[in-house]
């Protein structure tokens, strides 16, 4: 293959359809067409012409807009599926994710987990999709913007007849005094802010060329946006963790290097109240029943004083008290803690009474702190209860043995040994919620359930994001590109003398009506006939 030399003397790259300089049609196929395809100025999109090395093949794959659109469609569908069930990081830590999805959502949940949708947004194939969109964006843009830039820069004033004739807006006419007519039109076009170039008495009036760069500016914005997303994977740039914290508990805030601690002073869930809240809410409350008004965690932030070794009790210095509400995070340094979830009434304490089964007489109450049970509860007068075993999250395993599934007191069970003056060797009783088993036959005494005490648990998002400004920058550039491409049009008007005739042609990338009106105004009074819209004429003829 060789470069294509046009009659006008300009040498064009291989694959050029319209000569960059004079616009003459170089491609045989195009010669039969009544109107030219003006996309990318008929320049050679190189990817289509070279297809030799592996590099070229990869390049060509990503250079296709069709491929780009499909990548976007696939990514959209995948992203949508990822929102159907909660992602792994948002499920409460009551059981392993493996069991949780099946337990909560049945076989659909299991499938969801097995296919990896529980961790979609950081799965390798999702990241590759996003990355491919980025690559496609860069290559598609480069592959088009460079030839387009070349073609627009190299264009001559006197375009070839075959080029002008096949423009959508075209007309040929006689003028009495061509020189004067051209001078008049030039002045009028100038006043319309066209920049005028002249050559051999022909005129090219052009304005708004920069609007052609709009889509590419827009893509630069998108790429910056993607770079922002990429930076989130750089350690230290981005933190997004969940902290589950019980009322009364003090915990290290993750990712702060053990510097900061948080105490949960209480979780509050408020509902709208028909009596107390404004009347306007009444109807909505009637319709929906319970409507949450406020989710709030009252917390105290502490900072560690001095150096301590892990595990050592740190000396904490209070920084501040704060009420974390939805969209009202606690901010410190570059971190922010957001209210994100909660769990009401987690079992905290259980009370029992040592009771004679026959007489119903009670010999004292005991309260077991489920997060710190004691060995023995002495009730006095020779009555005591020993905790032989404790299962915070009890179930029977395959052998019928009681085991615990986790350390969270979701379903506590105890094996008590009850000592009384008349049973000094003790009686064994297995006590779970609404369940008592006496493994060694009938007991005389039992641990009668008295009541429970619960605590709420707050879930807070720990967030640090040093990449936000990059996203903002990308977004702004994106919008600049959109505005540039949308609110300005690239318009060109050619005036050429051909064998005593005056040929007028016009082209714009959008808003043909506006272009035609400007041509009309420019030619008004010059004696040159206003060109016709050949596309309109065509369709009228057909219709």
């Amino acid at each position, binding site marked *: 293959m060789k470069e294509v030399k046009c009659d006008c003397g300009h040498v064009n790259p291989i694959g050029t359809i319209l000569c960059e300089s004079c616009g003459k049609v170089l491609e045989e196929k195009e010669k039969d067409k009544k109107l030219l395809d003006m996309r990318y100025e008929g320049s050679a999109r*190189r990817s289509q012409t*070279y297809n030799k*090395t592996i*590099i*070229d093949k*990869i*390049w060509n794959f990503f250079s296709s807009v069709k491929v780009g659109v499909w990548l976007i469609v696939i990514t959209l569908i995948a992203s949508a599926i990822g929102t159907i069930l909660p992602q792994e990081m948002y499920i409460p830590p009551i059981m392993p994710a493996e069991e949780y999805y099946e337990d909560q959502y049945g076989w659909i949940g299991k499938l969801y987990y097995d296919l990896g949708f529980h961790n979609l947004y*950081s799965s*390798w194939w999702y*990241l*590759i999709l996003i*990355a491919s969109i*980025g*690559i496609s964006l*860069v*290559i598609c843009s*480069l592959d088009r913007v460079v030839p387009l830039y070349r073609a627009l820069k190299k264009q001559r004033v006197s375009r070839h007849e075959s080029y002008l004739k096949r423009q959508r807006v075209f007309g040929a006419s006689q003028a009495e005094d061509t020189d004067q007519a051209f001078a008049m039109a030039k002045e009028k076009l100038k006043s319309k802010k066209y920049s005028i170039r002249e050559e051999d008495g022909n005129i090219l009036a052009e304005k708004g060329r920069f609007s052609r760069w709009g889509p590419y500016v827009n893509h630069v914005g998108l790429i910056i946006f993607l770079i922002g997303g*990429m930076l989130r*994977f*750089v*350690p230290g740039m981005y933190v997004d963790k969940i902290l589950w914290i019980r009322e009364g508990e*003090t*915990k*290290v805030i*993750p990712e702060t290097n*053990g510097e900061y601690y948080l105490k949960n002073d209480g979780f509050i869930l408020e509902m709208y109240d028909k009596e107390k809240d404004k009347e306007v809410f009444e109807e909505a409350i009637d319709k929906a029943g319970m409507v949450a008004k406020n989710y709030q965690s009252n917390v105290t932030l502490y900072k560690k004083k001095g150096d301590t*070794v*892990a*595990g*050592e009790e740190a000396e904490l210095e209070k920084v501040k008290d704060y009420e974390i509400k939805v969209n009202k995070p606690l901010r410190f340094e570059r971190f922010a803690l957001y209210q994100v979830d909660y769990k009401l009434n987690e079992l905290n304490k259980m009370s029992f009474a040592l009771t004679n089964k026959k007489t119903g007489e009670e010999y004292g109450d005991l309260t077991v702190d489920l*997060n*710190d*049970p*004691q*060995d023995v509860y002495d009730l006095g007068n020779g009555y005591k209860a020993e*905790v*032989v*075993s*404790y299962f*915070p*999250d009890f179930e029977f395993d395959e052998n019928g043995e009681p*085991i*615990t*599934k*986790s*350390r969270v007191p979701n379903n506590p069970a105890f094996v008590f040994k009850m000592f009384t003056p008349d049973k000094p060797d003790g009686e064994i009783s297995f006590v779970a919620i609404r369940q008592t088993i006496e493994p060694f036959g009938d007991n005389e005494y039992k641990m009668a359930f008295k009541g429970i005490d619960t605590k709420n648990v707050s879930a807070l998002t720990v967030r640090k994001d040093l990449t936000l400004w990059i996203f903002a920058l990308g977004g702004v550039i994106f919008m600049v590109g959109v505005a540039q491409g949308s609110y300005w049009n690239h318009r060109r008007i050619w005036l050429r003398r051909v064998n005593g005739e005056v040929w007028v042609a016009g082209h714009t990338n959008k808003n043909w009506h506006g272009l035609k009106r400007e041509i009309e105004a420019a030619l008004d009074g010059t004696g040159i006939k206003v060109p016709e819209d050949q596309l309109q004429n065509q369709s009228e003829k057909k219709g």
Partner: protein
Amino acid sequence: MKKQRLVMRTVILLVLGAAVAYTLYANFTKDKIQKVAVGEKAPDFVLTDLDGNKHRLSDYEGQGVFLNFWGTWCKPCEKEMPYMNNQYKQFTDEGVQVLAVNVGETDLAVNKFSERYDLSFPIVIDKDSQVQSAYGINPLPATFLIDKDGKVVKYITGEMTEDTIKNYMEQIKP
């Protein structure tokens, strides 16, 4: 011309490819990055055992330390405990110390567990997860082999057999 274009395309693709590769790499290692790397010094900690004695890791310098993280509900942990107990008895005179860090359960649960298996090595409880977060513990059981200089020799997750435990203790014998 042609050569220049090929070079250009290759460079652009390489840059893009490198960016993608880095992102993927960073993503896959972000959960797996061992906070405590093999060959580095194991982070020091102080925890209290069931009898109220404090154990500081740095106090064991000069001995090998078999550092095991476990929970009573974790089946593989439960299985390997008696093996560790047997081997501890063999190696304790040879200068290998076992420290079993419970991941913050109740004293009662840990006590009962220890009684049931008659465990003789010190068991400490990491109440507020500080040590776990310093060591980046995720799945249980997790075991670190620490040599006499306090350096991590090996990191093991998952169940161990009695033979492998013996092998490991052999490795960190001073």
